[in-house]
Protein backbone atom coordinates (compact mmCIF):
# COMPACT_ATOMS: atom_id res chain seq x y z
CA UNK A 1 0.00 0.00 0.00
CA UNK A 2 2.87 2.27 0.78
CA UNK A 3 3.98 2.14 -2.83
CA UNK A 4 1.14 4.40 -3.86
CA UNK A 5 2.97 7.68 -3.47
CA UNK A 6 0.84 10.78 -3.46
CA UNK A 7 2.43 13.69 -5.26
CA UNK A 8 1.28 16.86 -3.62
CA UNK A 9 1.29 19.75 -5.99
CA UNK A 10 1.91 22.64 -3.63
CA UNK A 11 3.38 24.81 -6.36
CA UNK A 12 0.49 27.19 -6.24
CA UNK A 13 0.92 29.65 -9.04
CA UNK A 14 -1.91 31.92 -7.97
CA UNK A 15 -0.61 34.86 -5.91
CA UNK A 16 -3.78 35.22 -3.84
CA UNK A 17 -3.93 31.47 -3.29
CA UNK A 18 -0.65 31.59 -1.41
CA UNK A 19 1.53 31.05 -4.44
CA UNK A 20 3.85 33.97 -3.85
CA UNK A 21 6.33 33.48 -1.00
CA UNK A 22 8.11 36.81 -0.61
CA UNK A 23 10.05 35.49 2.40
CA UNK A 24 10.84 32.18 0.66
CA UNK A 25 9.42 30.30 3.63
CA UNK A 26 6.19 28.32 3.70
CA UNK A 27 3.10 29.49 5.56
CA UNK A 28 3.60 26.93 8.32
CA UNK A 29 7.21 27.89 8.95
CA UNK A 30 6.39 31.61 9.03
CA UNK A 31 3.58 31.07 11.49
CA UNK A 32 5.90 28.99 13.68
CA UNK A 33 8.38 31.87 13.64
CA UNK A 34 5.75 34.40 14.67
CA UNK A 35 4.40 32.10 17.36
CA UNK A 36 7.93 31.75 18.72
CA UNK A 37 8.32 35.52 18.67
CA UNK A 38 5.18 35.87 20.82
CA UNK A 39 6.46 33.11 23.09
CA UNK A 40 9.73 35.01 23.39
CA UNK A 41 7.75 37.99 24.69
CA UNK A 42 6.08 35.79 27.33
CA UNK A 43 9.38 34.38 28.53
CA UNK A 44 10.99 37.82 28.49
CA UNK A 45 8.16 39.11 30.65
CA UNK A 46 8.84 36.36 33.18
CA UNK A 47 12.60 36.87 33.19
CA UNK A 48 12.26 40.66 33.38
CA UNK A 49 9.88 40.21 36.32
CA UNK A 50 12.64 38.18 37.93
CA UNK A 51 15.03 41.07 37.26
CA UNK A 52 12.67 43.63 38.79
CA UNK A 53 12.05 41.61 41.96
CA UNK A 54 15.74 40.71 42.21
CA UNK A 55 16.65 44.40 42.04
CA UNK A 56 14.02 45.31 44.59
CA UNK A 57 15.63 43.09 47.28
CA UNK A 58 19.04 43.70 48.84
CA UNK A 59 21.85 41.54 47.48
CA UNK A 60 24.14 39.57 49.78
CA UNK A 61 27.15 41.87 50.11
CA UNK A 62 29.27 40.01 52.66
CA UNK A 63 32.08 37.53 52.18
CA UNK A 64 31.02 34.33 50.35
CA UNK A 65 32.43 32.31 53.28
CA UNK A 66 29.79 33.86 55.58
CA UNK A 67 26.79 33.15 53.37
CA UNK A 68 23.70 31.69 55.02
CA UNK A 69 20.10 31.52 53.80
CA UNK A 70 18.11 34.51 55.00
CA UNK A 71 14.75 36.13 54.37
CA UNK A 72 16.49 39.52 54.36
CA UNK A 73 18.39 39.28 51.09
CA UNK A 74 18.32 37.45 47.77
CA UNK A 75 20.16 34.09 47.99
CA UNK A 76 23.29 33.27 45.99
CA UNK A 77 22.28 30.63 43.41
CA UNK A 78 25.61 28.84 43.96
CA UNK A 79 24.43 27.96 47.46
CA UNK A 80 20.91 26.93 46.48
CA UNK A 81 21.59 24.75 43.43
CA UNK A 82 24.61 22.87 44.71
CA UNK A 83 23.52 19.24 44.75
CA UNK A 84 23.06 16.43 42.25
CA UNK A 85 21.38 13.03 42.71
CA UNK A 86 23.39 11.10 45.28
CA UNK A 87 25.71 13.98 46.09
CA UNK A 88 24.83 13.92 49.79
CA UNK A 89 25.30 10.14 49.92
CA UNK A 90 28.86 10.32 48.60
CA UNK A 91 29.76 13.18 50.92
CA UNK A 92 29.80 16.04 48.40
CA UNK A 93 27.99 18.89 50.12
CA UNK A 94 28.84 21.73 47.74
CA UNK A 95 28.78 21.15 43.97
CA UNK A 96 27.54 24.52 42.68
CA UNK A 97 25.69 24.47 39.36
CA UNK A 98 27.08 21.06 38.37
CA UNK A 99 23.67 19.49 37.87
CA UNK A 100 22.26 22.51 36.00
CA UNK A 101 25.37 22.44 33.83
CA UNK A 102 24.73 18.82 32.91
CA UNK A 103 21.12 19.71 32.08
CA UNK A 104 22.37 22.53 29.84
CA UNK A 105 24.65 20.16 27.93
CA UNK A 106 21.83 17.61 27.55
CA UNK A 107 19.57 20.24 26.00
CA UNK A 108 22.30 21.54 23.66
CA UNK A 109 23.00 17.96 22.59
CA UNK A 110 19.34 17.24 21.86
CA UNK A 111 19.21 20.45 19.84
CA UNK A 112 22.07 19.20 17.66
CA UNK A 113 20.40 15.85 17.05
CA UNK A 114 17.29 17.79 16.00
CA UNK A 115 19.32 19.75 13.42
CA UNK A 116 20.71 16.44 12.15
CA UNK A 117 17.14 15.08 11.85
CA UNK A 118 16.14 18.15 9.82
CA UNK A 119 19.22 17.72 7.63
CA UNK A 120 18.37 14.04 7.07
CA UNK A 121 14.82 15.08 6.20
CA UNK A 122 16.12 17.34 3.43
CA UNK A 123 17.85 14.30 1.96
CA UNK A 124 14.67 12.15 2.29
CA UNK A 125 16.69 9.75 4.46
CA UNK A 126 13.93 8.14 6.53
CA UNK A 127 16.24 5.87 8.56
CA UNK A 128 18.44 8.79 9.62
CA UNK A 129 15.44 10.95 10.55
CA UNK A 130 14.15 8.12 12.75
CA UNK A 131 17.54 7.73 14.41
CA UNK A 132 18.08 11.42 15.16
CA UNK A 133 14.48 12.01 16.27
CA UNK A 134 14.91 9.15 18.73
CA UNK A 135 18.07 10.79 20.14
CA UNK A 136 16.24 14.10 20.41
CA UNK A 137 13.37 12.45 22.28
CA UNK A 138 15.84 10.77 24.61
CA UNK A 139 17.53 14.12 25.34
CA UNK A 140 14.21 15.80 26.05
CA UNK A 141 13.02 13.06 28.39
CA UNK A 142 16.36 13.05 30.22
CA UNK A 143 16.15 16.81 30.69
CA UNK A 144 12.61 16.53 32.10
CA UNK A 145 13.72 13.80 34.50
CA UNK A 146 16.60 15.99 35.70
CA UNK A 147 14.20 18.84 36.25
CA UNK A 148 11.85 16.61 38.23
CA UNK A 149 14.73 15.75 40.57
CA UNK A 150 15.76 19.40 40.78
CA UNK A 151 12.23 20.40 41.78
CA UNK A 152 11.79 17.66 44.36
CA UNK A 153 15.15 18.55 45.94
CA UNK A 154 14.19 22.22 45.99
CA UNK A 155 10.80 21.50 47.57
CA UNK A 156 12.22 19.06 50.11
CA UNK A 157 14.93 21.49 51.20
CA UNK A 158 18.15 20.91 53.10
CA UNK A 159 18.87 20.47 56.79
CA UNK A 160 22.04 20.10 58.82
CA UNK A 161 25.13 22.19 58.15
CA UNK A 162 25.68 24.38 55.08
CA UNK A 163 28.99 24.37 53.09
CA UNK A 164 30.24 27.32 55.15
CA UNK A 165 29.76 25.37 58.37
CA UNK A 166 26.64 27.19 59.61
CA UNK A 167 23.51 25.38 60.77
CA UNK A 168 20.50 25.68 58.42
CA UNK A 169 17.89 27.58 60.40
CA UNK A 170 14.86 27.16 58.15
CA UNK A 171 11.85 29.46 58.47
CA UNK A 172 10.49 29.87 61.99
CA UNK A 173 6.70 29.79 62.03
CA UNK A 174 4.37 31.42 64.55
CA UNK A 175 3.41 28.10 66.12
CA UNK A 176 7.08 27.47 66.94
CA UNK A 177 7.71 24.88 64.23
CA UNK A 178 10.48 25.28 61.66
CA UNK A 179 9.87 25.04 57.92
CA UNK A 180 12.46 23.62 55.51
CA UNK A 181 12.30 23.51 51.74
CA UNK A 182 10.00 25.58 49.61
CA UNK A 183 6.42 26.09 48.54
CA UNK A 184 4.61 28.93 46.82
CA UNK A 185 4.25 31.06 49.96
CA UNK A 186 7.61 30.59 51.69
CA UNK A 187 11.01 28.97 51.36
CA UNK A 188 14.10 28.49 53.46
CA UNK A 189 16.44 29.92 50.81
CA UNK A 190 15.40 33.54 50.69
CA UNK A 191 12.45 35.90 50.18
CA UNK A 192 9.15 34.12 49.27
CA UNK A 193 9.34 35.53 45.74
CA UNK A 194 12.53 33.57 45.11
CA UNK A 195 10.81 30.17 45.17
CA UNK A 196 7.69 31.52 43.45
CA UNK A 197 9.82 32.75 40.54
CA UNK A 198 11.79 29.51 40.48
CA UNK A 199 8.59 27.46 40.17
CA UNK A 200 7.07 29.81 37.62
CA UNK A 201 10.03 30.28 35.30
CA UNK A 202 11.51 26.77 35.30
CA UNK A 203 8.00 25.33 35.39
CA UNK A 204 6.89 27.30 32.36
CA UNK A 205 10.05 26.28 30.54
CA UNK A 206 9.66 22.66 31.65
CA UNK A 207 6.12 22.62 30.29
CA UNK A 208 7.48 23.85 26.96
CA UNK A 209 10.01 21.01 27.00
CA UNK A 210 7.20 18.59 27.76
CA UNK A 211 5.06 19.79 24.86
CA UNK A 212 8.17 19.72 22.67
CA UNK A 213 8.71 16.07 23.58
CA UNK A 214 5.06 15.31 22.71
CA UNK A 215 5.38 17.08 19.33
CA UNK A 216 8.69 15.33 18.65
CA UNK A 217 7.07 12.00 19.41
CA UNK A 218 4.21 12.68 16.98
CA UNK A 219 6.72 13.55 14.24
CA UNK A 220 8.84 10.51 15.09
CA UNK A 221 5.74 8.32 14.80
CA UNK A 222 4.74 9.90 11.48
CA UNK A 223 8.24 9.26 10.17
CA UNK A 224 8.30 5.61 11.22
CA UNK A 225 4.95 4.80 9.62
CA UNK A 226 6.00 6.61 6.47
CA UNK A 227 3.44 9.44 6.49
CA UNK A 228 6.09 12.11 5.89
CA UNK A 229 7.79 10.10 3.16
CA UNK A 230 4.52 9.67 1.28
CA UNK A 231 3.89 13.39 1.66
CA UNK A 232 7.08 13.94 -0.32
CA UNK A 233 8.85 16.24 2.14
CA UNK A 234 9.92 16.38 5.79
CA UNK A 235 8.94 19.98 6.48
CA UNK A 236 7.09 19.02 9.68
CA UNK A 237 10.44 17.96 11.16
CA UNK A 238 11.71 21.44 10.36
CA UNK A 239 8.75 23.21 11.98
CA UNK A 240 8.87 21.15 15.17
CA UNK A 241 12.65 21.60 15.07
CA UNK A 242 12.19 25.38 15.21
CA UNK A 243 10.08 24.97 18.36
CA UNK A 244 12.61 22.62 19.92
CA UNK A 245 15.54 24.99 19.29
CA UNK A 246 13.51 27.81 20.80
CA UNK A 247 13.07 25.76 23.98
CA UNK A 248 16.85 25.32 24.05
CA UNK A 249 17.32 29.05 23.48
CA UNK A 250 15.05 29.91 26.39
CA UNK A 251 17.01 27.56 28.63
CA UNK A 252 20.22 29.39 27.70
CA UNK A 253 18.65 32.59 29.02
CA UNK A 254 17.10 30.95 32.10
CA UNK A 255 20.48 29.40 32.88
CA UNK A 256 22.24 32.77 32.71
CA UNK A 257 19.71 34.92 34.50
CA UNK A 258 18.44 32.47 37.09
CA UNK A 259 21.47 30.33 37.88
CA UNK A 260 24.58 32.32 36.99
CA UNK A 261 23.78 35.96 37.79
Amino acid at each position, binding site marked *: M*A*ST*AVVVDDKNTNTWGGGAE*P*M*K*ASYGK*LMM*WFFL*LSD*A*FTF*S*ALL*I*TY*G*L*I*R*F*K*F*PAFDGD*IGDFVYSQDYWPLP*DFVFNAFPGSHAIGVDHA*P*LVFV*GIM*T*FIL*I*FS*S*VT*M*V*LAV*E*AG*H*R*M*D*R*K*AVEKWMLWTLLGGITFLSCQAWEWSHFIEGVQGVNPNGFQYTGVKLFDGSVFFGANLSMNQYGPPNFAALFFFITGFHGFHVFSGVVLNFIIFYQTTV*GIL*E*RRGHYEMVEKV*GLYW*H*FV*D*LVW*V*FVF*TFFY*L*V
Partner: protein
Amino acid sequence: MEQETSQVTPIPADKAKIWKIWKVMLILAAVTAVEFIIALAIPTSILAQPVKVYIYIALTIVKAFYIVGEFMHLSHERKSLIWSILLPVIFIVFMLFIFLYQGSAIYDQLF
Protein backbone atom coordinates in the same frame (compact mmCIF):
# COMPACT_ATOMS: atom_id res chain seq x y z
CA MET B 1 8.54 -5.26 6.63
CA GLU B 2 10.63 -5.08 3.46
CA GLN B 3 7.68 -4.25 1.23
CA GLU B 4 6.81 -1.40 3.58
CA THR B 5 9.94 0.53 2.61
CA SER B 6 9.30 2.60 -0.46
CA GLN B 7 11.43 3.33 -3.48
CA VAL B 8 12.62 6.70 -2.19
CA THR B 9 16.40 6.65 -2.34
CA PRO B 10 17.96 9.05 0.13
CA ILE B 11 20.52 11.53 -1.11
CA PRO B 12 23.90 10.64 0.48
CA ALA B 13 25.00 12.84 3.37
CA ASP B 14 27.39 15.71 2.82
CA LYS B 15 30.17 15.19 5.38
CA ALA B 16 31.21 18.86 5.39
CA LYS B 17 27.66 20.01 6.18
CA ILE B 18 27.32 17.57 9.09
CA TRP B 19 30.70 18.57 10.49
CA LYS B 20 29.52 22.20 10.43
CA ILE B 21 26.51 21.27 12.61
CA TRP B 22 28.71 19.52 15.17
CA LYS B 23 31.10 22.47 15.13
CA VAL B 24 28.26 24.76 16.26
CA MET B 25 27.57 22.37 19.12
CA LEU B 26 31.24 22.45 20.14
CA ILE B 27 31.14 26.26 20.16
CA LEU B 28 28.01 26.26 22.35
CA ALA B 29 29.53 23.73 24.75
CA ALA B 30 32.79 25.68 24.92
CA VAL B 31 31.00 28.97 25.67
CA THR B 32 29.01 27.26 28.45
CA ALA B 33 32.26 25.84 29.85
CA VAL B 34 33.79 29.33 29.87
CA GLU B 35 30.76 30.61 31.81
CA PHE B 36 31.34 27.89 34.38
CA ILE B 37 35.01 28.73 34.75
CA ILE B 38 34.16 32.39 35.28
CA ALA B 39 31.45 31.53 37.81
CA LEU B 40 33.36 28.99 39.88
CA ALA B 41 37.13 29.25 39.34
CA ILE B 42 37.66 33.02 39.22
CA PRO B 43 37.09 34.73 42.59
CA THR B 44 35.26 38.04 42.75
CA SER B 45 38.44 39.71 44.00
CA ILE B 46 39.92 39.33 40.50
CA LEU B 47 36.73 39.86 38.52
CA ALA B 48 34.05 41.95 40.25
CA GLN B 49 30.49 40.55 40.20
CA PRO B 50 29.07 43.30 37.91
CA VAL B 51 31.87 42.64 35.39
CA LYS B 52 31.06 38.93 35.54
CA VAL B 53 27.40 39.66 34.86
CA TYR B 54 28.27 41.67 31.74
CA ILE B 55 30.48 38.81 30.51
CA TYR B 56 27.64 36.30 31.10
CA ILE B 57 25.21 38.46 29.14
CA ALA B 58 27.70 38.85 26.26
CA LEU B 59 28.33 35.08 26.17
CA THR B 60 24.59 34.37 26.32
CA ILE B 61 24.04 36.59 23.29
CA VAL B 62 26.83 34.71 21.48
CA LYS B 63 25.04 31.42 22.24
CA ALA B 64 21.67 32.86 21.19
CA PHE B 65 23.24 34.01 17.91
CA TYR B 66 24.46 30.51 17.10
CA ILE B 67 21.21 28.78 18.11
CA VAL B 68 18.95 31.17 16.20
CA GLY B 69 21.30 31.76 13.27
CA GLU B 70 22.58 28.26 12.60
CA PHE B 71 20.24 25.77 14.31
CA MET B 72 17.06 27.67 13.48
CA HIS B 73 18.63 28.62 10.16
CA LEU B 74 17.64 32.27 10.44
CA SER B 75 21.00 33.55 9.13
CA HIS B 76 20.28 31.81 5.83
CA GLU B 77 16.73 33.12 5.39
CA ARG B 78 15.53 36.11 3.41
CA LYS B 79 16.44 39.53 4.83
CA SER B 80 12.77 40.44 5.24
CA LEU B 81 12.21 37.37 7.47
CA ILE B 82 15.34 38.08 9.52
CA TRP B 83 14.27 41.64 10.24
CA SER B 84 10.63 40.81 10.95
CA ILE B 85 11.86 38.49 13.70
CA LEU B 86 14.72 40.59 15.05
CA LEU B 87 13.18 44.08 15.11
CA PRO B 88 10.36 43.31 17.59
CA VAL B 89 13.01 42.05 20.03
CA ILE B 90 13.96 45.71 20.52
CA PHE B 91 10.82 46.05 22.65
CA ILE B 92 12.13 43.33 24.96
CA VAL B 93 15.38 45.24 25.50
CA PHE B 94 13.36 48.41 26.07
CA MET B 95 11.15 46.68 28.64
CA LEU B 96 14.20 45.16 30.34
CA PHE B 97 15.79 48.56 31.04
CA ILE B 98 12.51 50.11 32.21
CA PHE B 99 11.75 47.34 34.68
CA LEU B 100 15.28 47.01 36.06
CA TYR B 101 15.27 50.77 36.63
CA GLN B 102 11.90 50.46 38.33
CA GLY B 103 13.23 47.63 40.50
CA SER B 104 16.12 49.70 41.81
CA ALA B 105 13.73 52.63 42.40
CA ILE B 106 11.53 50.39 44.59
CA TYR B 107 14.66 49.23 46.41
CA ASP B 108 15.62 52.86 47.14
CA GLN B 109 12.16 53.45 48.58
CA LEU B 110 12.21 50.34 50.76
CA PHE B 111 15.76 50.24 52.09
